[in-house]
């Protein structure tokens, strides 16, 4: 009888230890969403289309993220220049969730992304020399590939049942691309290649509406 009591005590201790050991990756569900800022810009500007979506796997403390989108724009500033671009982009990365114990699965995250894009752009422009000559020239970048890294800070709060609204603020840096006929003016997923800081970095922000598919 003493042996049976000892065995059952050991089982209780073992079960308690298993319960208290935290899981590093505790799958909670999947969240999918769209960037509403891009949709808004596309509706306001007839020359611009930006559609971007994301899918997240919620592992409690950590969230794996995949984003992708398409971008096209046309800027007509004749006689100075005319610029057209069409391309696609994707970002992949992970976030740490600092409010992972939140019961409504709202998130406050900090994370990293690696972004890649492929685009084709055209530039026609007027060039005036120091001697007053004006020439009309054109240049084209075919299937330009670009890459960059992002630090991302984000918030998402539940609006109604399983529908969330949030934003991601991005610090983008490490932009790299192959030189082609001209320096790319815009890069899908990254933004303008030239920024105020002029140190190969940029800020960006996205606003998302997402739906959460809970586990179980």
């Amino acid at each position: 009888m003493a042996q049976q009591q000892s065995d059952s005590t050991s089982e209780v201790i073992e079960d308690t230890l298993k319960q208290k050991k935290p899981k590093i990756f505790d799958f909670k569900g999947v969240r999918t969403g769209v960037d509403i800022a891009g949709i808004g810009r596309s509706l306001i500007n007839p020359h611009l289309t930006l559609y971007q979506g994301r899918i997240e796997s919620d592992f409690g403390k950590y969230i794996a993220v995949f984003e992708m989108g398409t971008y096209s724009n046309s800027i007509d500033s004749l006689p100075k220049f005319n610029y057209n671009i069409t391309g696609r982009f994707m970002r992949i990365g992970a976030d740490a969730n600092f409010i992972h114990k939140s019961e409504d699965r709202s998130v406050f995250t900090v994370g990293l992304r690696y972004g890649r894009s492929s685009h084709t752009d055209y530039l026609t422009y007027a060039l005036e020399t120091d001697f007053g000559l004006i020439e009309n020239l054109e240049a084209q970048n075919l299937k330009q590939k670009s890459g960059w890294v992002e630090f991302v800070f984000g918030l998402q709060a539940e609006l109604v049942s399983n529908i969330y609204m949030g934003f991601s603020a991005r610090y983008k840096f490490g932009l790299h691309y192959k030189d082609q006929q001209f320096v790319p003016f815009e890069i899908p997923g990254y933004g303008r290649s030239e920024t105020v800081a002029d140190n190969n970095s940029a800020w960006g922000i996205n606003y998302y509406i997402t739906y959460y598919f809970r586990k179980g």
Partner: protein
Amino acid sequence: MNFRAFSLLFFSAVLFSACMEEPQCIEPDTHYFNLSFKKIVDGSSLSVKIDSIYHVEQMQSFNKGDSISSIQLPFSPLHNLSTFVLTTEFKKDTVSFSYDLIPKLYATSCDVTMLFTNTNYETNTFDSVNFDFFQLPPNVQVYY
């Protein structure tokens, strides 16, 4: 709806949105070079009478009859080569430069700027000259 989270969300979004602004239009110091004249004896500045300086690709000439110790001369943004025929009180010389041309647009409010990269001299007939392409703009010092 979590109104506290929403308020923090809205405030943070407005805060980050303030970071967006367009860059300034830039004219980089790469589309011309400094030509200066020096005494071969001690390297001090020398004023030289110029009969003409002729830019072959642009088919333009300037500074006729002036006495100068230095001058700024533009590269042609329409060609990958700029050749100058320099006729001074001493002799007639020719120097040509090669470079890569890359158009760049800084902002929608700007004109397209031409960047000059990998600048180097192709030929020159000077008896004594020093080229410095590490400076922006590049420096060319001719010694008489």
